[in-house]
């Protein structure tokens, strides 16, 4: 058997307590396209960063053509023929295509620039692989798809034989993505080896020869594309046994919040595409999905910080216009923002100030523009007592709180007054297990008291543990809901991959 072009042997990488890569071994043959498939946080990007020398692995080694690659040296990786196409391009938008491609390849102390030779080489490469771009165009004027082509050209210009693409289609339109895969196949045919990272079932099935599924830092399966199906991959990717904790059955009441055909455009880009959902009192509706699929827009829309472009929103059956934050707060809608530190609290302000800021204009906390400090501090004290916020007094700065206690403060200021609706975006993200349990217990308690809860989360375990019904968000669209009782790994995987028809077919097959 021939020596594989690339061999990753037993690579492990730990960040704090989180084992991002756990003894991963992968081989790549000449002229082969391999897809690395996995959910967010499965360890795909970490592995590629180790390969490219951005991270030092804790264990394991990397062989290229049977030769060991020195660790932690991107330059050595480039010299050995590894090229990386980042998800966020590492290009300068004020330089031309040619200048971008040449950057980093010339000697620093040379007094002249080998522009004409470089131009020839660039044109030859773009001819060979059918990657057409104008070498003299300013990068900033190119479309995202063209910019990606430049990034690929840059890798090839450095004589890459192994090309790594990190979620290459994340920024592309469907047509651009198709074009990209045609190019990739052509490159493989000419003897290059490629690895691309993805969480989209469609594209790994059509573009890859071999698919490696990563989950929680481990290789869980390896399949030839010709010998597997989307359904199997979905199940492997999501993987866990779907066990739901025993809870009291929900007793959903009236519809508290109803969205019909809502579209949100930001700077001309549709972030939400005619989504519809119904949220009833006393139930938790879980919105699952891989990050960056419109979760932020959905949370902001319902939190009063984003306006919809079209569609109807009904609050307890009443159509309502675009809401501002003050309207949302006074309509008894609680909000847990996705990012505690960015949006949830103002770290340099006191805990009591953070507790009352969003309702500072209510007569309880201010009168004719003067803040009622006493009431604010008393309110903060109540939250601290009731929600077990540890590590600070009402007057100390919110920054001093640990993530879990900060989240309890945010939960407290929302749940203290028993909101009718709660919008919870990633409420347990980044918390330790004790804090996660506390947050979950509070959400379930609010549900029991009749609050309608919209839970937006990337953590499948969390959604499965808490939600009564589940919808998936993919590319700004919402799937139809499924009852959490009948959701299992395969179907959730298909839903998150946007294969809704497949997901419902799976239903009928059972």
């Amino acid at each position, binding site marked *: 058997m021939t020596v594989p072009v690339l061999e990753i042997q037993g690579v492990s990488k730990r960040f704090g307590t989180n084992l991002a890569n756990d003894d991963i071994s992968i081989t790549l043959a000449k002229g082969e396209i391999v897809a690395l498939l996995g959910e967010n946080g499965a360890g795909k990007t970490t592995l590629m960063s180790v390969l490219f020398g951005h991270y030092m692995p804790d264990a394991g080694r990397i062989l290229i053509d049977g030769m060991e690659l020195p660790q932690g040296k991107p330059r050595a990786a480039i010299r050995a023929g590894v090229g990386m196409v980042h998800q966020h391009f590492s290009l300068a938008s004020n330089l031309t295509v040619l200048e971008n491609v040449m950057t980093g390849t010339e000697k620093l102390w040379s007094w002249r620039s080998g522009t004409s030779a470089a131009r020839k080489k660039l044109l030859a490469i773009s001819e060979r692989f059918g990657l057409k771009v104008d070498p003299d165009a300013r990068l900033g004027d190119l479309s995202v798809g063209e910019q990606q082509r430049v990034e690929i050209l840059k890798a090839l210009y450095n004589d890459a034989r192994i090309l790594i693409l990190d979620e290459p289609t994340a920024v592309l339109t469907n047509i651009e993505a198709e074009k990209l895969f045609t190019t990739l196949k052509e490159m493989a045919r000419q003897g290059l080896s490629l690895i691309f990272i993805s969480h989209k079932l469609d594209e790994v099935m059509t573009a890859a020869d071999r698919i490696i599924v990563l989950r929680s830092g481990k290789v869980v399966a390896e399949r030839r594309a010709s010998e597997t199906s989307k359904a199997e991959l979905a199940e492997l990717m999501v993987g866990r046994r779907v066990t739901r904790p025993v809870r009291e059955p929900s007793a959903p009441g009236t519809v508290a919040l109803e969205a019909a055909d809502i579209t949100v455009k930001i700077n001309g880009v549709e972030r939400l595409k005619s989504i519809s959902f119904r949220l009833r009192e006393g139930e938790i509706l879980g919105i699952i999905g891989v990050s960056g699929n419109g979760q932020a827009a959905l949370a902001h829309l319902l939190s009063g*910080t984003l306006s919809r472009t079209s569609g109807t929103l009904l609050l307890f059956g009443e159509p309502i216009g675009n809401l501002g934050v003050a309207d949302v707060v006074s309509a008894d809608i609680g909000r847990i923002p996705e990012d505690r530190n960015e949006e949830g609290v103002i770290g340099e302000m006191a805990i009591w100030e953070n507790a009352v*800021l*969003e309702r500072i204009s209510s007569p309880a906390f201010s009168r004719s523009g*003067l*803040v009622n*400090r006493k009431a604010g501090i008393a309110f903060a004290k109540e939250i601290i007592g009731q929600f077990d916020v540890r590590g600070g007094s009402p007057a100390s700065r919110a920054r001093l709180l640990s993530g879990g206690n900060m989240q309890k403060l945010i939960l407290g200021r929302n749940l203290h007054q028993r909101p009718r609706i709660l919008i919870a975006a990633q409420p347990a993200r980044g918390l330790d297990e004790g804090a996660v349990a506390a947050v979950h217990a509070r959400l379930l308690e609010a549900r029991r008291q009749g609050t309608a809860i919209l839970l937006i989360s990337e953590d499948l375990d969390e959604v499965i543990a808490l939600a009564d019904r589940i919808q998936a968000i993919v590319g700004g669209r919402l799937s139809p809901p499924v009852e959490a009782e009948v959701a299992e790994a395969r179907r959730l995987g298909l839903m998150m991959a946007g294969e809704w028809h497949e997901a419902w077919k799976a239903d009928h097959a059972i």
Partner: protein
Amino acid sequence: MRFERREHRPLYLLIVAPVLAVIAALALSGILIAIAGAPVLDAYWRILTGAFGSRLSATETLTRATPLMLTGLAAAVAFRARLWNIGAEGQFYLGAIAVAAASAKVLGDLPAPILIPLLLLVGAIAGMVLILIPLWLRLRFSVDEVVTSLLMNFVALLFVSMLIDGVLKDPLAFGWPQSQSISDHAMLPKLIARSRLHIGLVIAVALAVIVHLMQSRTVFGLQSRAAGLNPSGAVFAGVPLGKTLMKVACLSGGLAGLAGAIEVMGVKGYVTTDLSPGFGYAGIVVAMLANLNPLGVVLAAIFTATMFVGADGMSRGLGIPTYIADVTVALSLLTMLIALFFTQYRIRR
């Protein structure tokens, strides 16, 4: 060795740190004084007596401190909300010229109890108008207000220069570019007879207290602080960002314009293009020295004025350049920033 964030900022540190910073700055500039060939302690003694040694010098120092307090407040309120108003100098001049114009052309005949408050208001409004231009550019087109507000200073100064060489020119000034004098009864009452010290000092100190209360006790104060510390957090909490910045800008520009008005009505009585020896810019230093605390601004302004007034006495007595005052103030700004750092962090081995 590494730095670690302090969990609590003890109160004594907040008081001790600035004192240590000033001592360190004085020690460092002492080296320069020694290099210049003068006895260091004697030099500082002369600065102190030069600034506070007599009734005259003490009133003079406080007269100098008055506009610094106001421009210092102007910078402090803006910086608190992360609005970088570097244009206090221009707002100062616009406030001054507005007072001169209003007194000479429109309001001069009103009785003093009505005229004086009215003129102060005119000065403040002139300062506000000037800052609204950079603010609008920022809110509408995200243009960095550091640059625009700074450049507006030159526009304002040239505008003043044009007026005092034109429509507002004093015909009795022997051809000097100088505005017409404001009416005698528009002058602010003296605080102490036979000195230049006027009630502007009382106004400035009162405003410092009011600004302090406003920042700590009002909804607007809370919201403007939130907007400055974490804009996206403020938006999420429902703070109207644009409106809040607008109010902050008006307050800041108003205070700087008022400084100009008070300087004209309290000291000079007319406007020239050297009315301000850089009060607007020095206000930024004063605000930073005070760690943007409005009450601290009062002390920082007095310290800065002490150095500048006292340095004259030292210079006359010992033959050292008065630039030493600039150096000391600049050094104290640096040592203050270091001291403030240590109120937030501690050293761990």
